[in-house]
């Protein structure tokens, strides 16, 4: 159904893997759907795996911020991992890279939930 997002579990952590273009009118909405779905299913520790994202635009960035806020409101933590350099650059220039909890790899992202 959702060709831009798939979900897997690591213990009580839910990993949402994004793929392709997280851009206006398609990938941005699919990302929101996927993250809202896991939140509604009760996920409280969420890692968004960005390794497969080729492009993100301001709509995708906006949805990412929205998902982060929704997660916080629901008492969940949403973190990001495996950001390709270009995606990281896009978040950096709008000073969002410090808002999100960003990890270079899965081990560090998972470990961060233990502490």
């Amino acid at each position: 159904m959702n060709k831009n997002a798939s979900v897997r579990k690591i213990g009580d952590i839910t990993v949402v893997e994004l793929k392709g273009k997280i851009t206006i009118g398609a990938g941005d909405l699919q990302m929101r759907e996927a993250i809202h779905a896991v939140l509604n299913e009760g996920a409280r520790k969420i890692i968004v795996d960005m390794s497969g994202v080729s492009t993100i635009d301001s709509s995708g960035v906006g949805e990412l911020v929205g998902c982060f806020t929704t997660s916080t409101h629901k008492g969940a933590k949403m973190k990001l991992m495996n950001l390709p350099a270009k995606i990281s650059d896009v978040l950096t220039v709008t000073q969002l890279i410090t808002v999100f909890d960003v990890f270079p790899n899965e081990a560090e992202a998972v470990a961060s939930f233990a502490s």
Partner: protein
Amino acid sequence: MTATSPGPIVLWLASRYENIELVQAALAHVCRQREIDGEMEHWIGMALREAVANAVKHGNRLDPDKRVLVKFDGVGNDLTIVIGDEGGGFDPERVSDPLAPENQMKTSGRGIFYIRTFMDDVSFSRGESGGTVLTMHKDLSKRGNAKGENE
């Protein structure tokens, strides 16, 4: 026209987000013609996607009977891209700063900022029919500094 300009390329498109993919394909073609590398193409593409998305969404308000114009032009080290819509126009001075603390967690308002960040010169004007005409330039001599940072 000089030897380094392959001549203008103009597209008129219905106001649909999916047509952004065609604009991206046209940019890829222009980048091949102008020998623009993939890194720079990526950042120009980001600005272009934002500009076309704004024309479709805010300008033409997704009315499929309204058109978006995209023109690639410029000679030598100047790549000029013009994006026009048939909307009501807006005042770019009144767009809020997405870096302001109170805007940081907003879900929108970053598009024009990205355009200004990734292009070298950006200006907005009114078209004959009142719509927005966004003209953006990329200095192709600044390779390796594709994000448009100042140092």
